[in-house]
């Protein structure tokens, strides 16, 4: 029995304008989705060429959910995206070459080789680097919101988590705290229906993760995560509500994880029909179709955008490959912070 509200799809360009995006913005959204996918596809190749050490995780199928939410964030807002949320990094302005450098453990990746995959964040762009203990980011996001509340700043924190991570106590505690204090935090659940090999019914017993929001005293919304505009609209509502002092919202973006948990997992446990059905709902394809139908996207325009993305990624990769591997002599640096480290936007 569902409690959460189900989001409406976005119909027309006008509706979109009402939600705050014009045509240019929409093309930018499309481009960001292409870049997101392009980086991850290239990453697969790099991994199998032995150029990416460790393991490799992607968020194929989550491009709309990630780009959609990030597009709704304000410049001063902060977020804790996870490994399926490459689109957040791209939308917020992280340069692709730095992402490749991070994948490859090079000095110019945001983590300078100390952590891999998307365990990285450029805090100037308002992001906090994730950990592998995924739900642990939720109390952190809630804490950011707490700071904004205390200082009465019109800023919002966005905390991402998967449906698997919803099972841990961190999720409960964060939402309890955020709800009781009406903190300006938006919880975004990337429900891609598989936590490694564990299906949703073993992670939560309600119909939706978003059904729980009511238990914490705020609204929960279930959204078709492959519809970037629907995601955007709901995210915008929730973020602005929080900014205005209206407290948290739990957004659940429903998608399917289109690849294995990581590159070494072939997801044999996912029924093939599931892949087939969701492949028909590919976020990028959907949006391209919508743009053609509702925003008069021409083949030419589309071709230009695609070519531009290809060129961008190609030169990004070249640049990343020139970035050196870290010097072992630097290993011990920075275990402890100094006062200089406090000279950041967040601490002003």
């Amino acid at each position: 029995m569902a409690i959460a509200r189900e989001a409406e799809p976005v119909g027309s360009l006008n509706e979109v304008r009402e939600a705050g995006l014009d045509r240019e913005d929409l093309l930018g959204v499309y481009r960001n989705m292409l870049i997101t996918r392009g980086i991850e596809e290239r990453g697969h190749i790099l991994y199998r060429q032995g150029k990416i050490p460790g393991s490799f995780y992607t968020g194929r199928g989550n491009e709309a959910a990630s780009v959609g939410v990030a597009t709704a964030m304000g410049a001063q807002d902060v977020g804790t995206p996870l490994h399926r949320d490459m689109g957040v990094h791209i939308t917020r302005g992280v340069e692709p070459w730095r992402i490749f450098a991070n994948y490859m453990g090079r000095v110019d990746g945001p983590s300078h080789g100390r952590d891999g995959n998307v365990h990285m964040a450029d805090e100037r762009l308002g992001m906090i680097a994730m950990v592998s203990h995924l739900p642990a980011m939720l109390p952190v996001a809630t804490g950011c919101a707490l700071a904004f509340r205390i200082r009465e700043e019109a800023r919002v924190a966005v905390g991402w988590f998967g449906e698997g991570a919803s099972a841990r106590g961190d999720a409960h505690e964060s939402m309890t705290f955020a709800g009781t204090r009406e903190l300006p935090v938006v919880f975004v659940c990337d429900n891609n229906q598989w936590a490694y090999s564990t299906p949703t019914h073993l992670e939560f017993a309600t119909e939706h993760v978003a059904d729980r929001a009511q238990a914490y005293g705020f609204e929960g919304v279930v959204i078709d995560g492959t519809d970037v505009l629907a995601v955007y609209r709901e995210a915008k509502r929730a973020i602005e509500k929080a900014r205005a002092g209206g407290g948290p919202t739990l957004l659940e973006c429903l998608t399917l994880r289109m690849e294995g948990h990581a590159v070494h997992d072939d997801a044999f446990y996912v029924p093939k029909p599931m892949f087939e059905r969701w492949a028909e709902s590919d976020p990028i394809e959907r949006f391209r179709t919508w743009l053609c139908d509702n925003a008069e996207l021409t083949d030419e325009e589309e071709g230009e955008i695609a070519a531009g993305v290809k060129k961008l990624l190609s030169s990004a990769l070249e640049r990343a490959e020139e970035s050196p591997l870290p010097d072992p002599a630097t290993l011990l640096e920075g275990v402890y912070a100094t006062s200089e480290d406090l000279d950041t936007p967040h601490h002003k």
Partner: protein
Amino acid sequence: MATETAVDVVMPQMGVSVSEGTITKWLKQEGEQIEADEPLLEISTDKVDTEVPSPASGTVTQILVPEGATVAVGTKLAQIGGAAGAPAAEPAPEPAPAEEAPAEEPVAAAEAPAAPAPPSAPAPEPAAASSDNGRAFVSPVVARIASEHGVDPSAVPGTGKGGRVTKKDILAFVEGGAPVQAAPAPTAPTAPAVPAPPAPPVPAPVAAGETLPGETLEPITAMRRGIADHMRRSLDTGAHVTSAIEVDMSRVVKTRERLKREYQAAYGVNPTYLAFVAKASVETLRDYPYVNAEMRGDSIVTRGFVNLGIAVELAEGKGLIVPVIRNAETMNLLGIAKAIAEIANKARNKQLVPDDVQGGTFTITNPGGYGTFHGTPVISQPQSAILGTYALVKRPWVIEDELGDDVIAIRPLMNITLTYDHRLVDGAYAGRFLRDLRERLEGWEGDES
């Protein structure tokens, strides 16, 4: 982009615990062209089967691993561009082998000299050590072994850092014939003692660690092992011969009775028979330097001094130790008596320091405390002789009276032995030493103080 320089294709790691992969199919052959990112081969691992895209455009110049082969992650599988048919990737550079090892050899080498001849620097002069900074440092285990065996670490050749003595060095030294250790008879704290064991017979053929009914096992302590090794080595080194002489100690007895009270009252010292014998021996050694000498390499070392070792039995039968009275030739009877009392006391109270048991040139042992009248002590290497004193026994003795006739008198007799190294000391020489010693003891003037 096409590559002129060689680009390696390696087996990727498909997952954290994956350590190898199998080539299932080559999609290109040597000599064929390939584009960057185009699939080059298919592989199978524990986790997944996948394609490996080419890292570069160009000619496949080498295919190094055949289909069906399983190789470790990171193995070079093929090469794009560069020279064709080059041999497989050079093996990883080997770690530098034992060439820099010679530094370790001295440890083994230190054992060698210890074996044939006694260590070349047992004498108290500081050995020709490398840098003395390290030599001054004695590690806990070396200090313990030194104290247990009565060895002065500064006399041990050191092969450790800065020339310090290592555990190996001191153990080798102890086994190789530490000068102190060969003391034969254990002695009771003051005077009389226990017979010296001659070369002990080899134990019965029962296997080590096993017992026959009625037998018990106890472990061999470090000290016992040290004594055992030293005794064996000493007998294998010196050509042990023992000559004995009987000494009429009447005058000594009388003198002692007179001095005893005086010494006790004034100096708190008991002049023992041992002190008298020691004093007389030290004087006699002046005339018989070879009995106070050492064979060192190709030379014979004689001395103008006597560092007199006195064998002392340790409490609870723990073993024996031979503290040394340095420069005994400078002491009178009182001095020697005091020195003997002092070292016996220190030995009894475990207060001996390595310096106390180091550098002896001649040793006296006193097995006669339990009534034995003869023995054949073992020389304390690298000395060349050891004197044994035995029970003072009243015997009927033939003496000449005032008229020059033979009469029988009751006399206190002491048997004294000199066990000497016949490589250096000949029988006649030893005999003369004993004769002179007897003369001194029998002719004791008694006005010493």
